[in-house]
């Protein structure tokens, strides 16, 4: 119920931002209609658009209709035919003339592949580097890897992405052009976005892991494990790393949930048609149903990812399971 309430609040806020804020700034329904019209629209055109989009209806009525369509579905008149938009109907885009839910489903494979591939890379790289750095604290390896981690955190995807596209793809031609459009395409064409995104996140996770491992490896039970004669690998992985994983999982849940809702900058940088790019286009074009739909999906994924993380706590940490 909490999640449902959260989604309602988010949808209401987004709705308000789109309708109430512009109205407060003096934007009229004619202005809104003109955003959907071609060059130099005449008065009749604006009236027709206002009528068709119900722009003169009170905002609460429009919001009510939107929520109702999510629960009960809706239909849309294209002029000639009626399009069914079954529940959960997230609205209909008058820019692309498609139900928003269909668009999100169409874009989801791209976003999912970006998120999953990058997450695998950053978890593997980040945790490995973090563990090695913690175990070799103060060594050259530690300093170099933490230096790289700092660079990773400091260099956002739009920078590393554009540089790598310009040089790795176009100048040196070491990797093919990034052209992933859906499950039917080769996912390894996403290698560059994965690496750029993972570079950012791996740095963060390396630092998190290192800090956690440094703390854990000084705990009494680690000393006890070593005293019992357990192999160092078992001590590190089973006792040290396992305890460190709990905070990492918490952060990972949030990060991964957000990415599933659209890796906006990565998708934009590499021109990948994912959910993030869809949302961004929606913002640029004042396409409220798309923005609302994408926002709801992001919120849903974050809530779901956190729910899964909560369940996994019990697997990783016996104290949670027993309590």
């Amino acid at each position: 119920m909490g999640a449902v309430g959260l989604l309602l609040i988010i949808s209401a806020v987004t709705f308000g931002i789109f309708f109430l804020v512009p109205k407060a700034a003096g934007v009229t329904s004619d202005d809104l209609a003109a955003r959907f019209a071609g060059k130099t629209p005449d008065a009749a055109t604006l009236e027709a658009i206002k009528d068709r989009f119900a722009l003169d209806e009170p905002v609460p009525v429009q919001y009510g209709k939107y929520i109702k369509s999510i629960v009960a579905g809706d239909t849309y008149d294209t002029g000639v035919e009626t399009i069914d938009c079954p529940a959960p109907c997230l609205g209909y885009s008058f820019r692309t003339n498609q139900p928003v839910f269909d668009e999100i489903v169409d874009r989801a494979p791209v976003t999912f592949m970006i998120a999953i591939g990058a997450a695998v890379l950053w978890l593997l790289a980040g945790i490995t580097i973090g563990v090695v750095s913690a175990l070799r604290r103060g060594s050259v390896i530690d300093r170099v890897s933490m230096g790289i981690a700092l660079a990773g955190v400091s260099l956002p995807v739009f920078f590393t992405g554009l540089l790598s596209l310009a040089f790795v793809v176009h100048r040196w031609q070491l990797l093919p052009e990034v052209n992933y459009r859906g499950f039917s395409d080769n996912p390894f064409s996403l290698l560059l976005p994965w690496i750029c995104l993972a570079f950012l996140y791996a740095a963060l996770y390396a630092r998190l892991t290192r800090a956690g491992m440094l703390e854990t490896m000084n705990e009494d039970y680690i000393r006890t494990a070593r005293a019992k004669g357990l192999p160092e690998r078992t001590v590190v992985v089973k006792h040290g790393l396992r305890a460190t994983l709990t905070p990492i999982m918490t952060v990972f849940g949030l990060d991964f949930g957000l990415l599933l809702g659209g890796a906006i900058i990565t998708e934009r940088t590499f021109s990948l048609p994912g959910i993030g790019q869809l949302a961004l286009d929606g913002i640029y074009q004042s396409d409220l149903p798309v923005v609302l739909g994408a926002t709801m999906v992001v919120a849903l994924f974050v809530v779901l990812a956190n729910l899964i993380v909560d369940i996994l706590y019990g697997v990783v940490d016996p104290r949670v399971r027993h309590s």
Partner: protein
Amino acid sequence: MKSPKVVTSAAAAAVALSLGLSACGGSDDSGDGGGSAKFDAGSTAVVNASDKKGGVLKYAQPDDFDSLDPANMYYAYALNFSRVYSRGLMTYASKPGTAGAEIVPDLAEAKGVVGEGGKTVTYTLKQGVKYEDGSQIKAADVKYAVARTFDRGVLRNGPSYFTQLLDADGYKGPFKDKNLDNFKGVDTPDERTVVFKLKKPFSEFDQVVGFAGQTNPLPQAKDKGERYGLHPFSSGPYKFEGDYQPKKGGVLVRNEHWDQATDPNRKQLPDRIEIQSALKAEEIDNRLISGSVHVDLPGSGVQAAARQQILTQPKLKDSADNPLAGFHWYLPINTEVIPNVECRKAIVWATDRSALFRAYGGEVGGEPATSIQPPTVAGREKGTDFYTKADANYTGDPAKAKEALAACGQPNGFSTKMVFRSDRPKEKLAAEAMKQALERVGIKIELAGYPSGTYTNEQFGSPAWTKKEKVGLGTYGWAPDWSTGYGYLQPITDQDAIVDTGNSNTSVLKDAEVNKKWDEVVSIQDPAARAKIYNEIDQRVREQAAIIPNVYAKSLLFRPSTLANVYLHAGFGMYNYATLGVTG
């Protein structure tokens, strides 16, 4: 927090810098370079002429079409591309040079025959023209295509000339009124004859019919309303393979029912045409240079990084064209906010044309303007300068400006506001140049930037807003719907063209002499006589200091060596998409 657009632009600039440095270092370019033609050859002649069939022609665009429904689009590049899969009664001639701006018969056998004192225009369809399913194109399909443009709630992107010109008042379109007999604006006495009925004579009706796709025939049974643009029914050389996916792209293949013998304006050379949408502009440039994309669909020129790369490498430069794009970036002075012509003259006299020229990219970005109509407009005369000089080195005449200020009763100057599109660096630079130049004579300018998305509708395009905010001038640009003085000047100078939202007459000009000429010119059938009046209007507007001429825009277009039959089309201001082929 900065918006993604801002931060990516900053990063793009960094990449541009590093690429530029690499280029300066003289490293070998790995791209395919260009063909044998020289720089700017495609601006006036066909480059890489070839009738070789086969291959895949790849288009890319950073955004998307307003629609692929020929009746529901307004972008010049969309209208250009629509000719690949759709035909209308009239269209632009597929010829290089100024001949391309001429409207010629397409599905019609000949130009429109004017009757009943100019109140009817009749076209006859060619024999044997067919749709992609092999069925015959009929006059009733043209009538239906025109009728559907009357529903502005569904087909809201396209031009609205037919609703204004045809004698069909009260008709709501075939979506609301299914009985096509109720549409009286077009008659179809037989299967091949289409008679347009006008409220009053309109001498450029062929142009109205030909510049856009609103007469492209469509059988009523094939219409999908606003979703028709996802899969238009082809009458041109190519047809869609599956639905077009907005912001992703689509594929076209040969239409075997199209007959070259009926169509001198198109070719059917590649086997397939692929469109990739929502690809970043900088990435498109990179792919153009490497040859993996053949055409940048919007046709507005490469971005800053590629521009530097192309202009500094002779091999790449030979594969580029730098034509006039059809736009004139001018500066309207709001005659409602600054009603005294002497005050407006002072602004024009003080304008630093040299700074403006540089703001718009110097020689590669454009050429200094004299007339309001750009050189691409048929019959346009260069004219003489009023209160300024079309000279890249002219910095204004402060002394004359002060004289004008004295005549205006404001010897110490006055204050006003200037607006510009905040996401267009050139316009921001131009606004800053104006502020500096006008301050020399005591005219204080307050600058205000607004996003492109709302600028032409809600700010500078709203006369009520400009009046309320006391906006005296702004940055603006205009390209004609069709290449005549009417297509260019009427929307930006006729009082009748002023609308509350999305207004193009941004000078809010209400000049009786200009209005009278607009009323008279529409019934003159001789194009040369009309052009003379257009030039008089052009001169009158500049005499009234309602518009400061600035630069005629030039774009830097790149043509990969594998692209065949490339030339600038005067009607669209970009390469002609209807005849392209690939040789690699």
